[in-house]
């Protein structure tokens, strides 16, 4: 911290307030929209941070996807034309998280010697490669977009962990008889601050009620890694890797507004050392100190945090204002040259076909079919282009049914949403409320995943369309289904099929009676002998009749369930409630999802 740190620039104070406000807003909206609580009331708020992300706009546009709500990002574009990375310094919630962590963890750490001017160029290469991949119809830039990163990590990992932690605390307090704990639990669950367990797993208890996602640890670890990389450099991610930062920097590279270093600069290096992104570099112009060059600020790297003007410089040489940029020495040039750009783009152009081929081969293999949310663009290639892997749909899904894919269907499909029906199911009502039903409102979007999707990769569907959307088709596994495989009664799947015209029905049939099979052979013989005599028209004595009545019959009638394929939408409720442990006796498969009703 410089010697003049006592008086902060008013815009520095404003910047801190803005950062805390936007991070708070991000988390507030995330909690309110998790599992759809607010999404129906205000879809735009639910998507706010993703809708205003210029990288999402650019990537989606290059992938041939257009959604009017993404035009909100033009506001950030306009801001960046004037103050290139002010978004990163003032708004980006990932950036603010890093600043907070930096202050808590690395405040006294000396990182002044970790200067890596070449590494900075990586983000431009990453941006170029990702945008080329978007042109190939792969929306994988969401893997690296900071808003996507935070949305995903918080909704898929941190929020469920906080939910579990809070509940564990309240449950422990309740079980130790601490007054008010049970009431606090009921209140929090009743008001959706904690996830109501009864919303998640039907039948539930012993198979786990908690909201949770597959691979959540990966998302938590990624966020931790991004934050801890600051042990090496402040805002390590933002300076070196962030493709959104690169895009905003490029947009504003001609901006007249920038920190300007005046002639009195003594080239003491204090500004470069204190600056979050190390945006200051020795330039060409002479400085007040003999034989040294005056510093200059790389505007594409400046976060406009307003700390430098009053706090860093011992001789008060920095002013943020407009003017022509001072020339930068070639070795300090941040933005890579045309050659490097072309190289990165070419890498993308090689990776694109490779990823597409990988994905199509794995899809053909069809051992791990992916089940896309209702409204997901079809064919699959369109979905892969429009989906930015942000995790919004997983966050909003009220039954915790949507999860991030692994690489089952190719590397490019990583973190796209897929159903896991053993965990959740596509809820018949989803976004529909009692008020909608009472008022007869049928035109409102009813799929929460579509409502919160920023790019329209999942289209918004009315309730009538949503409940007819075919995700897959349920198929009985006769080697596992209880009536078929074990001769036991069940029909749980038929009971809970949510369609008014149920897609599962049953027929009673005579099947082997297990009680008969348990009988020793001599008793079976005796039973058959008595029955045979009855069949031949002989009369049995009273004792023999009694004896026969006490013996179990050879067959019993049992209700055997069937899927009525044309009605089934593959919502997965049956698979979810099937009492067979492990893979259910009825499972959703991707049979005839496109061609035939």
């Amino acid at each position: 911290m410089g010697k003049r740190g006592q008086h902060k620039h008013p815009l520095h104070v404003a910047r801190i307030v803005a950062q805390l406000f936007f991070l708070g807003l991000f988390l507030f909206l995330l909690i309110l929209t998790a599992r759809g609580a607010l999404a129906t009331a205000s879809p735009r708020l639910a998507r706010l941070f993703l809708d205003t992300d210029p990288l999402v706009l650019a990537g989606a546009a290059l992938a041939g996807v257009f959604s009017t709500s993404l035009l909100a990002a033009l506001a950030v574009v306009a801001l960046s034309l004037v103050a290139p990375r002010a978004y990163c310094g003032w708004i980006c919630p990932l950036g603010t998280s890093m600043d907070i962590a930096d202050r808590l963890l690395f405040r006294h750490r000396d990182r002044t010697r970790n200067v890596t001017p070449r590494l900075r160029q990586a983000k431009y290469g990453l941006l170029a490669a990702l945008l080329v991949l978007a042109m190939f119809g792969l929306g994988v830039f969401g893997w690296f977009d900071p808003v996507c990163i935070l949305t995903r990590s918080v909704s898929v990992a941190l929020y469920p962990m906080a939910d579990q932690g809070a509940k564990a605390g309240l449950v422990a307090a309740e079980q130790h008889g601490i007054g008010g704990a049970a009431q606090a639990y009921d209140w929090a669950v009743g008001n959706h601050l904690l996830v109501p367990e009864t919303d998640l797993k039907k039948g539930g208890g012993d198979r786990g009620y908690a909201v949770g996602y597959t691979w959540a640890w990966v998302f938590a670890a990624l966020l931790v890694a991004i934050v801890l990389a600051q042990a090496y450099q402040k805002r390590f991610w933002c300076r070196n890797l962030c493709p959104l930062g690169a895009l905003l920097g490029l947009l504003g590279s001609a901006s007249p507004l920038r920190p300007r270093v005046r002639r009195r600069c003594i080239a003491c290096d204090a500004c470069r050392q204190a600056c979050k992104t190390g945006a200051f570099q020795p330039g060409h112009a002479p400085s007040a100190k003999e034989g040294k060059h005056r510093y200059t600020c790389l505007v594409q790297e400046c976060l406009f945090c307003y700390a430098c003007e009053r706090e860093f410089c011992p001789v008060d040489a920095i002013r943020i204002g407009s003017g022509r940029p001072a020339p930068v020495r070639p070795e300090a040039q941040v933005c890579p040259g045309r050659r490097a750009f072309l190289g990165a783009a070419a890498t993308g152009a090689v990776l694109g076909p490779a990823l597409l081929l990988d994905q199509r081969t794995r899809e053909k293999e069809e051992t791990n079919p992916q089940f896309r949310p209702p409204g997901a663009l079809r064919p699959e290639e369109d979905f892969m282009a429009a989906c930015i892997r942000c995790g919004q749909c997983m966050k909003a899904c009220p039954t915790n049914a949507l999860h991030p894919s692994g690489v089952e269907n190719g590397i490019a499909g990583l973190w796209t949403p897929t159903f896991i029906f053993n965990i959740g199911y596509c809820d018949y009502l989803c976004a529909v409320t009692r008020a909608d039903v009472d008022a007869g409102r049928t035109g409102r979007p009813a799929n929460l995943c579509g409502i919160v999707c920023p790019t329209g990769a999942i289209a918004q569907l009315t309730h009538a369309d949503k409940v007819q959307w075919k995700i897959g088709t349920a198929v009985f596994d006769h080697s596992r289904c209880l009536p078929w495989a074990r001769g036991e009664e069940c029909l749980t799947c038929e009971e809970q099929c949510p369609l008014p015209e149920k897609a599962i029905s049953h027929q009673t049939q005579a099947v082997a009676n297990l009680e008969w099979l348990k009988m020793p052979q001599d008793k079976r013989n005796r039973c058959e002998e008595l029955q045979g005599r009855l069949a031949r028209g002989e009369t049995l004595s009273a004792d023999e009749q009694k004896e026969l009545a006490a013996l179990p019959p050879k067959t019993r009638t049992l209700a055997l369930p069937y899927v009525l394929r044309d009605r089934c939408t593959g919502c997965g409720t049956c698979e979810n409630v099937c009492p067979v442990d492990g893979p259910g006796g009825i499972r959703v498969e991707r049979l005839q999802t496109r061609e035939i009703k």
Partner: protein
Amino acid sequence: MNHELTRREFFRKAGLAGAAACAAWAVGGCSGGAGGEPAAYRARAHPMADAWKARIGLAQGGDDPARNTRAAIEKLCGPDGLKTVIRQGDIVIVKPNIGWAQVPDMAATVDPAVVATVVRMSLEAGAKAVKVFDNTLGSGSKCYEFSGIQAAAQEAGAEVSQCAPHRFRMLSFADPRVKRLMEWPIYEDVLAADVVFINLAAAKTHNASLVSLCMKNLMGIQGGDRGKMHQEIHQNLADLNVVIRPTFNILDATRVLAQEGPGGGRRDFVVKADTVLCGTSAVTVDAWAADPANLPWKKGHHTLAAVQHIAWGAAAGLGVADPGRIEVLA
């Protein structure tokens, strides 16, 4: 002891104190906590439970489920109504069927006016608190909202909360009359000593158990994987009713889900019957209601004899399965 506590020292001391507390809890507290004495069903029996085993109260007609509810209870219990069992300061548990996210017209859940009336009558009889819950099938929030029961019960003065998984306790089903079930997690509110447990069912058909009435409604206090109840469902229901015998049973047949139960979902499955009945035996109430002569079930859907869980419940001495032997106070 003259130096100030540094942060490092504070954390060290706090950590030690915390570790000691955890150890103490692990040694002593754990065993005395939730896992203490084995759970038992100890709800109060109605004082007339044996005398009224073959008796039901019945109210039919009109278009007022609240009035029918009150009338049915008073037909059976006399003008004292629920005062025959509820004493000043009692805790009353009301378990309506809230199992489905359907509006009341779909007849998949109990009419909210019936729930509200039972809550009001319990409070009038002197109850300190009335708790309303159900372990729903679909989303609990949606079921509570769509059925209208949460709003109606709260307005009548009840505490409505969703089932929480940590509040189920394993109950042993050790009883010579129990044939299949060994143990099952049961909601702990119902297991509290001397509570008044009111079983409030809706009249529905059911794809596996043929009908879903008072005996089947008890599945809403069960936790665990209830899908497994469907394996030999009639015997399981009889077993459940041997162990759990509600203080009072009310069946709301204001609307009858005459086919495609228990979920329903279409208005043409529903027949208006404007009937409420009650009794101290779930089996007796169910036997009257399951009889196709008494309620407008879809023609040929079932015969009373086919509903084995009622017959087996009666065989276990829980009530009367023969409608001819039921004394109807109407």
